[in-house]
């Protein structure tokens, strides 16, 4: 159950994480927010929608699936090349974040990790794939209104679920902001700013307001998605 703490991070070297992916990608935003929240350096290359590059042989050699984000970390002699945003956030936190952002004890981490996973597998698809994409990334004339309305209704109990879990917070772990807030909170800017019929979620609204107070969230997650809008 022991994990390598920050011992391989030389004091003199601030890790510089190379990131491939456009700033407007919600999955890139999770990674960038984690980098900034931990206080790491980064070099980000635009790739994906509007920028291309993710179908080049060079990119496919990094990620055979051709998806962003991809990161490379060459800190202190390591060479880690990886993709899958949630796994990247876990990697960065496990490598460089102090307690309690990344709880070292699996018994503490497990009950937070399940909400992070739920955000990725349930809240994310329910909102991002079924509401945000159809509403923003589909030309108005092609939007399937009946299907979108069903998705909007189906989103309500999902949002209430997270609202109940957050309660008075302030964070998922209670007093401490953790990796699970990054994976859960990363979707809330779009959820909040997109205009549609939502469940009443006072706890979730207050939680989102607290997230907005964090400079790293304001910079890396609250990024305009106008460039994605279908015309």
């Amino acid at each position: 159950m022991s994990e390598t703490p920050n011992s391989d991070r030389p004091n003199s070297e601030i890790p510089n994480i190379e990131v491939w992916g456009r700033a407007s990608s919600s999955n890139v935003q999770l990674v960038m927010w984690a980098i900034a929240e931990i206080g790491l350096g980064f070099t980000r290359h635009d790739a994906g929608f509007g920028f291309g590059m993710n179908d080049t042989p060079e990119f496919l050699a990094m990620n055979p699936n051709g998806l962003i984000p991809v990161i490379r970390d060459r800190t202190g002699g390591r060479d880690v090349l990886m993709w899958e945003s949630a796994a990247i956030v876990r990697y960065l936190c496990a490598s460089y974040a102090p307690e309690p952002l990344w709880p070292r004890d699996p018994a503490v981490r497990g009950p937070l990790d399940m909400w992070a996973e739920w955000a990725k597998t349930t809240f994310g698809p329910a909102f991002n794939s079924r509401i945000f994409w159809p509403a923003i990334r589909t030309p108005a004339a092609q939007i399937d209104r009946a299907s979108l309305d069903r998705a909007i209704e189906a989103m309500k109990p999902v949002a209430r679920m997270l609202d109940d879990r957050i309660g008075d917070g302030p964070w998922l772990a209670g007093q401490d902001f953790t990796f699970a807030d990054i994976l859960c909170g990363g979707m809330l800017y779009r959820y909040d700013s997109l205009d549609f019929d939502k469940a009443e979620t006072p706890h979730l609204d207050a939680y989102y307001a607290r997230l907005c107070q964090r400079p790293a969230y304001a910079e890396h997650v609250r990024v305009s998605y106008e460039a994605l809008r279908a015309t």
Partner: protein
Amino acid sequence: MLTVWGRATSSNVQAVMWCVGELGLDHVRHDLGHTHGGLDTPEFRALNPHGLIPVIRDETGGVGAAPVWETAAIVRYLAARYGRERLGDAFWPADPAARARVDMWAHWAKESVAARFTVPVFWAVVRTPAAKRDPVAIARGVRQLGRELDTVEARLAENEWLAGGHFTPADIMLGHVLYRYFDIDIARKPRPALDAYYARLQDRPAFREHVCISYESLRA
């Protein structure tokens, strides 16, 4: 003692139980879900407010009374808590740089392979009455799954296991749907590396015990 809630025929429960079996953990499992019901009781909702299986509670591992749900999070918990002492460091490396590859492939296998198999293919073929089956949608599901399996095939042509040279949770997240994939009545393109990998999985007693089991009770 580790307690697991969820019927043996749930593919997500199978992933967790296979992991429990590989780790050799003492456990008690309660059948819940589908014909067993029990997901709507206040007692179960107190364990998982979403009313979904699997759920675990590990009273020896330090989680204490706190339940853990979400299959992938459960497997990560079990691997982090017991992997090293039971199966050695390679199963879930303590060094985050080494663990990155395992976690990334595990996450990908669940989101890209298992998710493209269970609902769009397995449910559409097995859990849908013959009269309601949509062959066009099934063919599309098999084709989309096939693209992911081509990635798996390329990966396994060069690596014994999905994350590299060792059996890891990435293999659990991929392999827990393969018994059904190879068993159901669908078109399967030849993929020799995947076939050889599936044969290696069948050499594992925990895979045979927890994954290679009848799904007849699910048939519509």
